[in-house]
């Protein structure tokens, strides 16, 4: 694959000299995504789902077409199983407030993994607190792997909801969500999968994974900020109460009550982010055109290279597995005696953008015995030269902080 050619699709990469290695936080967007958003506003803008004049119909069509593209992208059975939200966090909160609060009772159990991003932990803490349910944790080994026998033992008759990320934003390891989903269903519970880190890097088939809910963000997969997706199985969505209420989610309203619109509009209260949805659809089409196989090849090449070089640096420690296959482009590391914020400060002085801190996964870092860490995360548009610049900088940090190499 021709990385240099693809980079030209990304204005920010062309116009700025940044070595952008913070893709797990948010990706960059290709011109076609920016154009799709602009075109919506320049040619098709009206408030979708309402209005009978042609322009409003065009806006509605563009929005609903985006829903079809999103359904196809994750292989949902029906476009109506796609709810547009702002981001993964909102998608998970929707399920927690709507499904969680109406299905979980005192004495029930909610199961999450210790590696969850705070956005897939705090909503479940809220449900547990409000219902009197117990929140339980699947622990992971230092390499990020889960013991499936242990997981199975944690899923009981009391378990109502299991929430787990498909790929950890710190470790980058792919969790066996399909196997876990089977265990969850045998006990009659439902499973929510956080796909924020998986959808930008691998083909996802929600039916094959047999998950009940699947949440992800547009901005991590080359789409605009402020648009995200919640996939939910139709039967579940139909019987769930609305999350937010107001305009555009009703059939009829009287002074005292309302009849809600059908799924998915029941869950999309207020004027929707149609331009964002259109931009996200453009991002999905762009990704499909390149293909995950080629994207993964480049991401793997860079990850393996960086892991191999860092492995040789005696004071640098990789968080998670040794094998690049188990990193999904994410390399989280620590440098002995140097605080991650100083690491990222020095890297940023060298023009390299990385993330430092607890990565919104404090329980995981505590579990791994780390206070905070630095994370470099790759996308297919990153080059081997950029990876080398990272390696070069990291190799000099201890010396620049006054320690011998």
């Amino acid at each position, binding site marked *: 694959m021709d990385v240099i050619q693809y980079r030209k699709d990304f204005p920010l990469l062309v116009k700025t000299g940044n070595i952008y290695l913070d893709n797990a936080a948010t990706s960059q967007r290709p011109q076609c995504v920016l154009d799709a958003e602009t075109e919506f506003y320049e040619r098709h803008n009206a408030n979708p789902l309402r209005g009978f004049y042609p322009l409003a119909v065009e806006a509605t069509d563009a929005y609903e077409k985006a829903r079809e593209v999103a359904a196809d992208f994750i292989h949902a059975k029906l476009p109506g199983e796609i709810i547009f939200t702002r981001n993964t966090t909102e998608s998970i909160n929707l399920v927690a407030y709507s499904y969680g609060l109406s299905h979980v009772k005192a004495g029930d159990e909610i199961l999450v993994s210790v590696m969850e991003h705070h956005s897939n932990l705090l909503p479940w803490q809220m449900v547990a607190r409000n219902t009197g349910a117990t929140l339980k944790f699947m622990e992971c080994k230092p390499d990020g792997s889960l013991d499936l026998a242990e997981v199975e033992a944690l899923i009981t008759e009391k378990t109502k909801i299991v929430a787990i990320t498909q790929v950890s934003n710190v470790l980058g390891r792919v969790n066996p969500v399909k196997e876990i989903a089977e265990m969850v269903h045998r006990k009659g519970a439902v499973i929510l999968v956080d796909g924020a880190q998986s959808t930008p890097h691998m083909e996802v088939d929600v039916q094959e994974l047999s998950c009940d809910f699947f949440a992800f963000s547009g901005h991590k997969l080359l789409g605009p900020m402020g648009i995200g997706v919640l996939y939910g199985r139709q039967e579940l969505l139909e019987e769930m109460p609305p999350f937010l209420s107001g305009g555009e989610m009703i059939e009829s309203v009287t002074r005292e009550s309302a009849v809600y619109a059908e799924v998915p509009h029941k869950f999309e209260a207020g004027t929707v982010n149609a331009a964002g949805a259109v931009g996200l659809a453009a991002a999905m089409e762009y990704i499909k055109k390149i293909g995950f196989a080629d994207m993964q090849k480049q991401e793997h090449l860079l990850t393996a290279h960086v892991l191999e070089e860092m492995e040789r640096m005696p004071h640098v420690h990789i968080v998670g597995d040794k094998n690049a296959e188990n990193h999904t482009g994410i390399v989280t590391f620590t440098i002995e*005696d*140097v*605080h*991650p*914020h*100083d690491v990222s*400060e*020095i890297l940023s*002085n*060298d023009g390299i953008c990385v993330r430092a*801190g*607890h990565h919104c996964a404090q329980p995981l870092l505590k579990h791994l015995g780390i*206070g*905070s860490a630095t994370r470099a995360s790759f996308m297919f548009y990153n080059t081997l030269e950029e990876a080398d610049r990272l390696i070069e900088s990291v190799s*000099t940090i201890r010396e*620049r*902080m*006054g*320690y011998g190499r």
Partner: protein
Amino acid sequence: MEGNRFYNEILTEHNIHPEFKHDLPDADIVLEGINPSCGDDIFLKLKVENGVITDGAFVGDGCAISQASADIMLGMIIGKTKEEALHIGEIFSKMIKGTATEEEIESLEEAGALQDISHMPARVKCAVLGWRTLKEALGENGQSTGA
């Protein structure tokens, strides 16, 4: 490389070999200071007699900037009266805001090594952590527990 200029020898030396990073069992003022953005967490310990800071130390964890800044601060305020210490803190704060005069920065001695922080908004909280904690410690808390 540019990174070298900011993490100068004064800063790295105070970070690696801090003079005042140790416990102070007979401290009469102990106050925790936290910088949630970096996760810096220190306990400032002071011994105050007749309005004079006779001894001081800190323990805790954090980035090089927070640790070095606290260490430099303690070197400057021990032996000073509370008022003098607070005055030095004010000059330091002016330097970080970029409003201190040349002479004022000169008067800060080694703390002047942190001057460039004024161009690094993300790290200001790290640099001022010790100083902010000192101000709090010598404020209301200092009045009630000090000698």
